[in-house]
């Protein structure tokens, strides 16, 4: 069974910058640093940098905790005059059985604070989840330069 939440606009052009492993919390620290560097390079505001890096941290933590680790793909995305940072977190975990529930605040199956997906969604401009039971989950977020 496959579920989707949100989508990315197919007219947007993106360029892959980096692929990084997310298998442990040291790699999560490295991922945060790479995302911060790219956000600085694209001159996102300090607040937008912080929101993006925090969202990435939450999603990477999900990938570690529920997906058994995974991979992050970092991209620069363009749509007309706009540009921004796009990041996908890919895991080969069990998938999310009830995606609508998982998006709600306060819902957790892992003993956390239940802010992971919903909290991360509020910090970015675009948010999309593609999950298939038994195959894995891809979460893609975008933060545009204002």
């Amino acid at each position, binding site marked *: 069974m496959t579920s989707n939440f949100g989508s990315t606009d197919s007219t947007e052009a993106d360029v892959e910058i980096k692929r990084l492993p997310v298998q*442990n*919390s*040291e790699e*999560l*620290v490295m991922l*945060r*640093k790479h995302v*911060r560097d790219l956000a600085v390079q694209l001159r996102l505001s*300090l*607040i937008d*940098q*912080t*929101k993006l*890096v*925090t969202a990435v*941290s*939450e999603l990477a*933590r999900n990938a570690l905790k529920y997906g058994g680790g995974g991979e992050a793909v970092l991209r620069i995305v363009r749509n007309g005059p706009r540009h921004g940072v796009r990041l996908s977190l890919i895991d080969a975990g069990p998938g999310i059985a009830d995606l609508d529930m998982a998006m709600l*605040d306060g819902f957790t199956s892992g003993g*956390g*604070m239940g*802010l*992971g997906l*919903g*909290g*991360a969604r*509020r*910090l970015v401009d675009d948010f999309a989840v593609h999950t298939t039971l038994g195959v894995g989950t891809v979460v893609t977020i975008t933060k545009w330069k204002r």
Partner: protein
Amino acid sequence: MDRIPILRMGDLLLVTIQVDMHDRLAMTLQDDLTNRIVQDQAKGVLIDISALDVVDTFIGRMISNTAAMARVLDATTVVVGMQPAVAITLVEMGLSLPGVRTALNIERGMALLGKRYHE
């Protein structure tokens, strides 16, 4: 193994977090602080996070838990120096650090704990 140093000043403990912590480092700090409260009979704990440019729910929970453990051990925790961008992000994400006292800087944090800075 990496450790974040804990300084004692009278009956206060001071921790300055200056690195982007991986999870084990954060959990070690939580354990170390709890042990030191008892060992040093501390009445207050100041956690300076002015160098932290990201606080996610894991670190937020570590801070909340540390404050709760300190309270059970009769010590008050004050988190000082949060960057404005971190405050905005935490609130938008929906994390409000329940039960944690905060102050703008170390001086005000010490005042909150009933100490004078130049004592």
